[in-house]
C-alpha cells in the first residue's frame, strides 16, 4: 500500500472531524437525537406533526454550509468525476441501502461507533467493505 502524501490533509481532516463530532454532540445533548443524515432525510417520507420542521432546518444547515464556509475562507477543492449515469445508479443504491440498513456514514459510522453499538459496527464494516471492493473493481480490474 502506497500512501498518497500529496493529497493527505491530516490537520484539516482532523479539525473537520472534530466539527462533525461537535455538531453530533450538540444535536444529541440539545435535541436528544442522532445526527444521521439518511435518517433525517428519510423521515421526511413519513411526515408527522412536529417532526418535519427540525429535519428541514438540519438539511438547510447542510445546504448553507459551503456558502458560509466561503465567506471566511476559500472553498477546498470539490471534484466529481462520475458521469451522470453513474451518479444516478450510485444515488439509487445509496438511497435504498441507507434506508434498508437504517443509517449511513454519519448515523452508523460516527454516531453508532461513538455509542459503541455492535449493530453500527457491523453496518460500518459492511459499507466500508463494499466501498473498498467497488473502487478496487472499477479502478483496478475494469480500468
Amino acid at each position, binding site marked *: 500500500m502506497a500512501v498518497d502524501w500529496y493529497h493527505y490533509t491530516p490537520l484539516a481532516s*482532523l479539525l473537520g472531524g472534530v*466539527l462533525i463530532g461537535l455538531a453530533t454532540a450538540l444535536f444529541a445533548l440539545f435535541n436528544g437525537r442522532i445526527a444521521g443524515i439518511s435518517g433525517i432525510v428519510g423521515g421526511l417520507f413519513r411526515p408527522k406533526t412536529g417532526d418535519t420542521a427540525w429535519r428541514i432546518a438540519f438539511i438547510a444547515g447542510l445546504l448553507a454550509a459551503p456558502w458560509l464556509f466561503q465567506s471566511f475562507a476559500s472553498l477546498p477543492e470539490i471534484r466529481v468525476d*462520475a458521469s451522470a449515469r453513474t451518479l444516478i445508479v450510485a*444515488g439509487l443504491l445509496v*438511497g435504498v441501502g441507507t434506508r434498508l440498513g437504517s443509517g449511513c456514514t454519519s448515523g452508523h459510522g460516527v454516531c453508532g461507533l461513538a455509542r459503541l453499538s455492535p449493530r453500527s459496527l457491523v453496518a460500518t464494516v459492511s*459499507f466500508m467493505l463494499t466501498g473498498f471492493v467497488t473502487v478496487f473493481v472499477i479502478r483496478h480490474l475494469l480500468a
Partner: protein
Amino acid sequence: MNIIFSLTAGLVFGLGLVLSGMANPAKVLGFLDLAGPWDPSLVLVMCGAIAVAYRAFVLATKRTSSLLGLPMQLPTARGIDRNLVGGSLTFGVGWGLAGICPGPALVLVGAGLAQGLIFVGAMLTGMGFVEFLRRGAP
C-alpha cells in the same frame, strides 16, 4: 428553539464535511482506493468526530430528557439482521461508485453543483422506494 439548534447542528456538520474533505468525492474515492495511492485523511475525520461524539453520548445516554427538555430519542434497536447488513452492503457499492454519501450529497447541492442535484434526486427516489415497500408490507 429546537429548530435553531437543528439548523446550527446541520451548519456545523456541513462546515466539518467541507473542511475535512469528506465533501470532495475525489478525496473520498482516494480513501476507498486501498490499492492505489491511498489517502488516509478520512481515518482522521472519523477519529476526530468519534472522539468528540463519544463523550457527548456518554452524557446523553444518562439523560431522560435533552437540555432543551425534549425526550431523548437515541436508537434502541439491537438486532443484527439481513436488512442491516444487506442495506449497508448496498450503500457501500453506491458510495464506492461516486464517492458520495448522504451528508456530502446535500453539501454538493448547497455548493451549486448540478452533479449533486442528480445524485440527491436519485437518492431520494431510492429512499422513497424503500418507504413504498415498507408501506406495502402488512
